[in-house]
């Protein structure tokens, strides 16, 4: 029993790489917030999930550095906590004593970020690679800004309204001026005498002369 434990400990220490440690210059820290992302449907983080992580990271490395056949064993993980957070480093498949530098690892992760995220049903915020900034999503720039479209519609309606108002007032005035000459003709006939005396509109009309021509006209 004791032998077995000793053997396992030696194996474990052999597998654990001294180069993987917190704040290592060759690796990154990863933080997962599974409960925040999935709530009730959160899965438990266990060995299998860690295996998936290492596999997806190996996949990302393969994608980025063409030709090099990264394996799960090339991804070394350490300092796992309850958070869930851990550090990882990447060794070269050709020579395990060599570590892949940070820039390459970062570029690989950036390239396949989406795939890694979806493998865990997480997002950039909940699967956090500390110090790797997510590429900021640019706001979609429309070809024509939508506000101009709304502006055009509203202004079109308003201009149509103004034109209708002005046209209707012109039409109204024309109707009035058409009616006026008609009425003026009718009254002209009944006021023959007053017209002879000059313009009846000037000055104060003399009330002593009756205008009721119907009775006095011969």
């Amino acid at each position: 029993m004791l032998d077995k434990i000793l053997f396992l400990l030696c194996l474990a220490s052999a597998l654990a790489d001294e180069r993987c440690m917190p704040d290592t210059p060759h690796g990154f820290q990863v933080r997962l917030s599974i409960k925040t992302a999935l709530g009730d449907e959160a899965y438990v983080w266990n060995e299998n999930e860690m295996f998936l992580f290492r596999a997806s990271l190996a996949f990302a490395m393969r994608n980025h550095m063409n030709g090099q056949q990264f394996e799960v064993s090339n991804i070394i993980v350490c300092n796992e906590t309850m958070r869930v957070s851990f550090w990882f480093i990447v060794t070269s498949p050709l020579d395990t004593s060599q570590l892949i530098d940070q820039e390459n690892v970062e570029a690989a992760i950036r390239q396949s970020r989406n795939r890694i995220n979806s493998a865990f049903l997480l997002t950039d915020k909940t699967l956090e690679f500390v110090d790797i900034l997510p590429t900021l999503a640019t706001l979609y720039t429309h070809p024509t800004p939508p506000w101009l479209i709304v502006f055009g519609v509203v202004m079109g309606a308003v201009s149509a309204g103004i034109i209708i108002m002005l046209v209707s007032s012109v039409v109204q005035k024309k109707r009035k001026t058409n009616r006026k000459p008609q009425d003026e003709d009718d009254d002209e006939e009944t006021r023959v005498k007053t017209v002879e005396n000059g313009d009846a509109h000037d000055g104060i009309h003399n009330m002593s002369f009756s205008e009721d021509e119907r009775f006095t006209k011969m």
Partner: protein
Amino acid sequence: MAGDKEMMEKEDGEEKEISERPKWDNKVQYLLTCIGFAVGLGNVWRFPYLCQTYGGGAFLIPYLIALVLEGLPLLHMELAIGQRLRLGSVGVWNSISPYMGGVGVASMMVSFLVGMFYNMILAWILWYFFHSFQNPLPWRDCPVNLNHTAYISECEKSSSVNYFWYRETLNITPNIQTSGSLEWWLVLCLASAWCFVYIGFVRGIETIGKAIYATVTFPYLVLTIFLIRALTLPGAADGLVYLFTPNWDTLKNPEVWLDAATQIFFSLSLAFGGLIAFSSYNPQKNNCERDALIVGCVNSFTSIYASIPIFAILGFKANENYNTCQNWNILQLTNAFNIGDENITVENYQDWFNHLNATDPSEVESLDLKTCDLHTFLEQSASGTGLAFIVFTEAVINMPGSQVWAVLFFIMLFCLGLSSMFGNLQGVLTPLMDLHLIPTWMPKEIFTGLICLAAFTISLIFTLGSGNYWLEIFNNYIGSMPLLIVAFFEIITVVYIYGINRFNDDIEWMTGRRPNIYWQATWRFISPLMLLVVFVAYVVMQAEKSPTYSAWNPDYVYFPLAEVLPYPGWVVAICGLLSAIPVISIPLVALYRFIYFLKNYIKTRHNPNPYANDVSSGDL
């Protein structure tokens, strides 16, 4: 609508075309127009702020006292005098006493100047309205800089709503001396705002009367919708409790009473001449007393009614900010101590904090945790454009269905402002028409178009980069002191020059009832006295403050705090001119009339003409 011209046939067959004074289609139109003029943007974004600053429910006391002692008497007086004399502001004061004609001129000038900058606010509202049809709302996210590495620093340091208002809308310059250039998008919005105003105003009260059915009733509908929605939001109760909890100590502060008096005065849109113009189109036998009571009370009711959804929404926003603040703290602790995800919650945060602080105080210290206090967030309210374009837009982002709420809100603000604009411009049009300054060949439509065009051209100042600073100046220096002076002269003229007894007789003839002791006391003594006190207090307070303004300067050391700058000398001179020019017309006109009178007197003394008939002495 009774037409402008009516053929009148006398029995002797004489024909004359008399231009009949336009009149309201019905009483409802008139009341709605007056209510629309009084109820404006201030009811929504100034009153709730005052209520909150001055101790919540306790502020209602000075507010209602000011309404009863100052607002209603002045309102009644303006409506009655306009109705009796059937003339606009210039005509009314001219006919009471030619020496007081300047009061009307002052009213007209203030109306025009206020109309100019008020419409700029409507242009901003239209801009936000046009942008509310996007998903996501453009003020939700910060834009990314050119190499896509980070957000634009100005936006990152302040906030996305601030950035959208100050940069993308106003494109504001760091100080008032830097004018910047005309911002084309603001010019477009200003042009469309003036087109809206023109459509309603084109034939004077004919078209205003039709337009206000929509523009006055719609805001109440939207306020009700917002009330129902806001009360169901989380945190609404906090906001309402905070708003209405009375803090009786504030009543000891004289500034509260001053602010209540000025708020009532400006809220009722007195001394603009617009109310006189509207009531001059009434039939003379109309109960103006009841009208005044209705308009005054509806205005105050609207203020109180509007503050409920506004504060519910502000409470919601404060709650959101508080939760964000707490969650940030929780995340910091979780990450630093590698505690399991979601183990620290808002409820057990304090226990965890104490435990962690005990075990590793230095680490906790280094995290720089924020102190999250709901009250601090509740106090972060604002008034004026800050409330509508910064605070409210931020709240709307977090509400589900934000586009709908944003659209409704901005349409409501636009309607509120539009109905006030009609009053402002009518206060300019009616005196001009009564003075027969319009050439007879020019139809009314063209004249109103010219007024709108002139105002649009001058108000292009406000579309400059420094436009917001200029608007603040116009708002502070025109829309305040000159109005107090004009109102004071108005009430003195009516009560002491026209004669309070004659005025009482007029009202008895118009309404059938003599004004009771309340009106007598307020007209004769209380209201003029209150106006004088308010005016003096206002001047004293303005004199104490050195003229400064808050500037938005991204290069400021303490950005995003506003940089407080003093006005340069030439700007102070302009401020003085803006306050003085409307007011100076009162003594100027009196002086002009006096000189004319002296000239006549001297002429008649030197050449006594026995045939000269004193009756026909012109329009003096």
